[in-house]
């Protein structure tokens, strides 16, 4: 499968008089193959939007190289821009223009037939509100307009930065269905989102970024499998006794008030056998598979930690608050 997006060693530092240097992206790599629906995950401030902006030529990268549809970015971006639809972080529109005019002007500038405008407005459910001023749109409607603008060119590659931002549950489902049908039609989709359940539902590949660096990448099932502890939840009449028996059988066991969590289970029949032999009958035996959320929290060091106020991603170098030694050790990669 050929790569549609390739990013290697991307670096971007923002310098401002007020805030000083802030490293937003620090040697980040990303590869998106043709036809993938690729999830792009990371905590707030981890550098997702900056990466996409650099890729699309909106900010100037300080290092690394990028390729979009085979064209080096940003130098040759204009050769492929017509095939890439993108929205970057809740796009803004000129408030006094109607939704229709906003799209029409883009279509004119990009040489897309203006008849497409009505099609995409219908696709995102704005067909009846197209001739209202964007100023009067709700957040979700603006977001839909943004998605419509990305769809306008009939893109081969769709880059969506938090498209579900502001959408209602029905809107999120519509968006999911839309992504699906686009992917079925062969469109490659790169989608950044914080709604991990959503990503798990629609994406086949995922890249996780933390503090400007890639911390995981690959097929969703493979990434998840890498974090599979082979744990099982066991419910049984006499948990204490069962725990002893299982430990005796060489399995690590965590005892919870109403269930046990057994680790390193190669074959679950071992559990029922060990307990059954002693007349303890297993009431429930469930595999505990990691989901994207737990993997994400583990990788990005954002899991719940007692007594530590949670921070946005502090960035690779400039940590805003030094965590107390000991408590901070559980956190993810530290550059």
């Amino acid at each position, binding site marked *: 499968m050929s790569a549609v997006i390739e990013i290697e060693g991307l670096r971007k530092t*923002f310098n401002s008089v007020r805030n000083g240097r802030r490293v937003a992206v620090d040697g980040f790599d990303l590869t998106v193959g043709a036809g993938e629906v690729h999830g792009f995950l990371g905590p707030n401030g981890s550098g997702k939007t900056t990466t996409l*902006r650099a890729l*699309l*030529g*909106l*900010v*100037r990268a300080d290092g690394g190289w990028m390729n979009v549809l085979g064209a080096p970015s*940003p130098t040759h*971006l*204009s050769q492929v*821009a*017509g095939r*890439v639809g*993108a929205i*970057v972080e809740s*796009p*803004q*529109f*000129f*408030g*006094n*223009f109607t939704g229709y*005019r*906003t799209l*029409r*002007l*883009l279509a*004119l*500038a*990009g*040489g897309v037939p203006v008849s497409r405008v009505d099609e995409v407005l219908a696709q995102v459910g704005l067909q009846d509100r197209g001739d209202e001023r964007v100023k009067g749109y709700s957040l979700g409607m603006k977001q839909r307009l943004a998605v419509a*603008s990305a769809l306008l*060119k009939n893109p081969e590659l769709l880059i969506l930065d938090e498209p579900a931002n502001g959408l209602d549950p029905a809107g999120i489902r519509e968006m999911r269905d839309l992504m699906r049908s686009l992917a079925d039609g062969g469109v490659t989709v790169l989608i950044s989102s914080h709604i991990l359940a959503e990503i798990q539902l629609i994406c086949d590949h995922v890249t996780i970024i933390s503090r400007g660096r890639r911390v995981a990448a690959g097929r969703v099932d493979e990434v998840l499998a890498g974090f599979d502890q082979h744990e099982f939840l066991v419910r049984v009449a006499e948990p204490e006794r069962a725990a002893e028996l299982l430990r005796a059988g060489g399995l690590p066991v965590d005892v919870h008030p109403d269930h046990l969590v057994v680790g390193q289970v190669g074959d679950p029949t071992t559990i029922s056998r060990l307990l059954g032999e002693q007349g303890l009958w297993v009431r429930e035996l469930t595999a505990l598979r990691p989901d994207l959320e737990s993997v994400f929290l583990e990788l990005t060091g954002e899991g719940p930690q007692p007594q530590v106020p949670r921070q946005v991603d502090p960035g690779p170098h400039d940590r805003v608050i030094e965590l107390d030694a000991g408590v901070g050790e559980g956190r993810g990669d530290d550059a």
Partner: protein
Amino acid sequence: MKLVRAELERLGARRFVQLMIVLLVLAFGATASTTLAGSHRPTAAELVEARTQAAESRRQMDDVYQRCVDRVNGNLPPGAEEEYFPADCGEVDPVRQERLPVATDFLPGVFVFSQQAESLLYFLIAFLVLFGFLVGASYIGADLNSGGVVNLLLWRPRRMTVLGAKLGTLLGGVLGLSLLASVVYLATFWVIGQAAGFPGHLDGAFWRDLGAVHGRGLVLVLLATVLGFALATLGRHTSAALGTAAAYLVVWELGARLVMEIVDATHPERFMLSSHVGAWLSGRVEFWDASACATAAGFCDRVYALTWQPALAVLIGLTGVLAGAAFLVFRRRDLI
């Protein structure tokens, strides 16, 4: 080309542009109707009367000159000594006057096109300069500020092309509108002159002069447009251009002028853009030369002049530098 078409549509759809055009039409309507109301077609008797008065006035000028010369030569009859005459009789020589009284000077309540055309045109140019500056600034300022430029760049990632197309379209639009406005404007007043006033003496020289003023005015309009555009691009916001213009006027044209007068700087006017604008429009402006007079005893009327060539160079240079900076900055800027 596609880009230019889209930009032209964007420009025309902007409410600010529409508002300014409405204002232009209103101002124009008000001037035209008050002119119309305050003017009538001169009767034959009025014309004859005016001609007589003009001839009389010219004759008086000849007379004064003659008496001045006579006095210098000592031929003046006694009793006329109290009359004031300049030391140099050339100053009252009718032949050396810029213009002599003509019949149309003596037509009260009559709109005379040949006499009013130039000042009417200056008014229009002043409006168009303001229009160009404000529209130039808000067109790009609002677009940068509202994220419209970012959206467009996702479609056409060539920044220089996009900004160039915007500036080009803007200049084309402003020029087109200015031409249209001036033609309609002058034509209306010409018709008023024909129908409800007096056309005056409209020879080739008149139209040539008017055309020259018009051409110079249009150059100024375009320069103001580029200036507004460049300042708003540099400051990423419409108000950056407005603020710079206001600050320039207050701090430099007023404040610095005062300071320069206090410290007796030589020829402070040459540092003021307004002087250069004046020089460009009228070909030449003269200022009283305080430094040359500082050493002179008694009455001093030494002047120095700014001419249009260096004035134009200053105006184009300034606008060019700012526009160049705007493009350069926009090329490298992070668009967030």
